[in-house]
């Protein structure tokens, strides 16, 4: 198993607030990794750094051996918390952009997923509900055959029924030779899918390792451990 992400001594602050404080991590290939932590612990910041959206940090970040840049962006598929497509766009416009810029984008697969969600290419984003727009974004991310999927809170703000559909879409569509990094608060719903977890708090690494091993060592579920660690 090789390393897809290697982070050494990463620092990032917003004003005087240090959000990532000397963080060092490694993610291996062929794993589904849960990135866990309370609000404001730096999960989204870490993901933005991996995707090349935040550049004013200190430390060394390598994805497939390279610093974030055009190459790493071509192998990382990102699903941000926010919807980023313009209101005026149709779904087909978004597909056109992905087809033009990502050589690993599978348009046929995207159309198939659209049908599964009862959507079509001609629909305008403006005419869609927030939930529908989030599904379009998920389809765009999961229709790529990327080496690393970075999914920021894909389950937040959706009802339990949609949650299982989204999870099923992620699990059944990611490139099986790749690594999937999922940040979430809803640990109970997803911990069964994780191979590894990375638990962050106060800008630092609190716990990282294989889920089965952690459960065996502690005799507790990841959800229980999370509640214990971050109890107010």
């Amino acid at each position, binding site marked *: 198993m090789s390393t897809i992400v290697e982070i050494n001594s990463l620092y990032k602050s917003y*004003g005087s607030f240090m959000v990532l404080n000397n963080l060092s991590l490694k993610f291996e290939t062929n794993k589904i990794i849960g990135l866990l932590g309370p609000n404001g612990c730096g999960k989204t910041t870490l993901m*933005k750094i991996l*995707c*090349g*959206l*935040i*550049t*004013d940090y200190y430390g060394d970040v390598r994805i497939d051996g390279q610093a974030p840049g*055009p*190459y790493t*962006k*071509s192998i*990382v598929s*990102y699903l*941000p918390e*926010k*919807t*980023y*497509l*313009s209101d*005026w766009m149709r779904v087909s*416009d978004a597909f*056109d*952009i992905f087809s*033009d*810029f*990502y050589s690993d984008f599978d348009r046929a697969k995207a159309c198939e997923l659209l049908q599964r969600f009862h959507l079509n290419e001609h629909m305008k984003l403006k005419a869609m509900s927030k939930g529908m727009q989030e599904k379009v974004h998920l389809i765009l991310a999961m229709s790529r055959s990327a080496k690393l999927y970075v999914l920021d809170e894909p389950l937040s703000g959706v009802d339990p029924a949609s949650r299982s559909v989204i999870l099923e879409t992620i699990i059944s569509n990611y490139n099986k030779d790749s690594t999937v990094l999922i940040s979430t608060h809803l640990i109970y719903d997803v911990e069964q899918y994780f191979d590894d977890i990375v638990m962050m708090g106060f800008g630092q690494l609190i716990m990282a390792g294989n889920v089965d091993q952690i459960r065996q060592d502690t005799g507790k579920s990841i959800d229980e451990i999370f509640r214990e660690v971050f109890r107010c």
Partner: protein
Amino acid sequence: MLGKLIKHEIRATGRIIPMFYIAIVTTFLTGLIGNLIDNSYLHGLATFLMIISIFAINIVTLVVVVTRYYKNLFGNEGYLTGTLPVDKSLILATKIIVGFGWIILSYIATAFCTFGLLFINNEITLELFQQSLFELVKTLFNEQYVRSTIFYFLATIIIQTMLFIAKIYCAITIAHTKPFIKHSVGFSILWYFIIGIIIDSIDAILIFIPFGINVETGHIVTETMLSGSGVLGLANLVSNVIVSIVLFLITNSLLYSKTSLK
């Protein structure tokens, strides 16, 4: 990749602006019909709309160019733009090329509206226009001072447009660096004025540099514009080109390592 970026940039920015061009042509034709059928209402309406169009096309173009840069790089759309597997300098080049194109088109539309107003108000006839154009072209090729002045005027428009885009993009980008990002809109405006004041100060000094073009001979001369002997200053133009390049380089460098999405 640059071609693909430009294609999508035109697609994104070209939804609103062309509507105004269609409106201008429609208004012009309405005015002509009003003239032909001697309908003063149509004629008056067309004149009014043509005047409005001159302001509208310029304002809308500026708003589209500025907001596109702001939203597409630093708003929610930035999550897509920032994760495209292309060099950031190509993204900046795309914004410069397309923004420049739309602004130049708005100048052409303004000129068309002005001629249109003269036509529909019978200040100029088609014969007179053809004759004037013929005379202008003839003079352009025969008279050095007309040729020099027109080329100088065109160069000034192109360079000033480029400088304007450079100032706006640089100001918005500086406002998205760490110290200013919390109030990025306010700081964008503030930085635009700060950059403008610096450039105007440089320009004020450069007026006294004896480097210009004599419009009557077309020769480069070591005289200032203030000498009063048909000399147009070149130092300002050259400095504006250099300043534009410097501002684009600063913007590019900040985009690479100093800016973040909120």
